[in-house]
């Protein structure tokens, strides 16, 4: 399965369209208020770095609300990365297709180099 991310309405850089093998999904960590960061195996294969996808959710100002929002985003990404279907891909987030699960409002991709 291939997981697809589309960060922007116009695909015009390496940070605007990214596809990964679902099996290379390493998990997520909270990295700021209202931000959860996912990691995938990067092409350069560094043992200490991967490609990072920062998922922005609503940061409400209270820790408990933020926790709930973060968990919703994590839950959505786990669901996406566990999809199995005949077509072989799942769109995890897309501005073009308006696929924004789990309250995720935007993503930012950093490719390891």
């Amino acid at each position, binding site marked *: 399965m*291939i997981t697809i991310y589309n960060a922007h309405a116009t695909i015009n850089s390496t940070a605007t369209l990214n596809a990964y093998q679902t099996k290379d999904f390493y998990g997520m960590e909270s990295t700021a208020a209202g931000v959860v960061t996912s990691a995938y195996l990067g092409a350069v294969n560094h043992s200490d770095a991967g490609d990072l996808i920062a998922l922005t959710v609503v940061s409400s100002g209270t820790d408990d609300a933020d926790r709930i929002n973060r968990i919703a985003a994590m839950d959505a990404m786990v669901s996406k990365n566990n999809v199995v279907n005949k077509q072989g891909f799942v769109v995890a987030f897309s501005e073009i297709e308006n696929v924004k699960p789990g309250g995720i409002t935007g993503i930012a991709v950093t490719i390891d180099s």
Partner: protein
Amino acid sequence: MVKPVENYLYFALTGTAGDAANDAVCYPVSTFIGATWNHAARTILRFEDNTANTIDGAVSKKFNDVVLTHETLATRGTIHMDIVKAMAKIMANPGRGKVITVVDTANGVVAEEFEALNNTTAISCATAFGITQ
């Protein structure tokens, strides 16, 4: 131990593909790492290099690039996503042990999944394969 059998993806450049070094490449589906934008009319596919795989804890920057040239963003805003989706469908082919021709530029052949994307600009491998042998 039973060796897993899987499909392989074949790509070829223009000219007499296969008669010179790096004219054609063939990679197992499982070595696909990912895909991303390369240019308004190009999408790049990355595969693990034969000398380096993650299981072996290989050194960095060892991967092979296959660049597909296709219709431009200006006339089809979703073209890069459409290419990646078609690639995913090709890789999800339920067969085992096949060599699937994805793009054979020399012979004007593309995989069936690319046919709907092939009308305005023929999908091709117009850029030399980035091979880290």
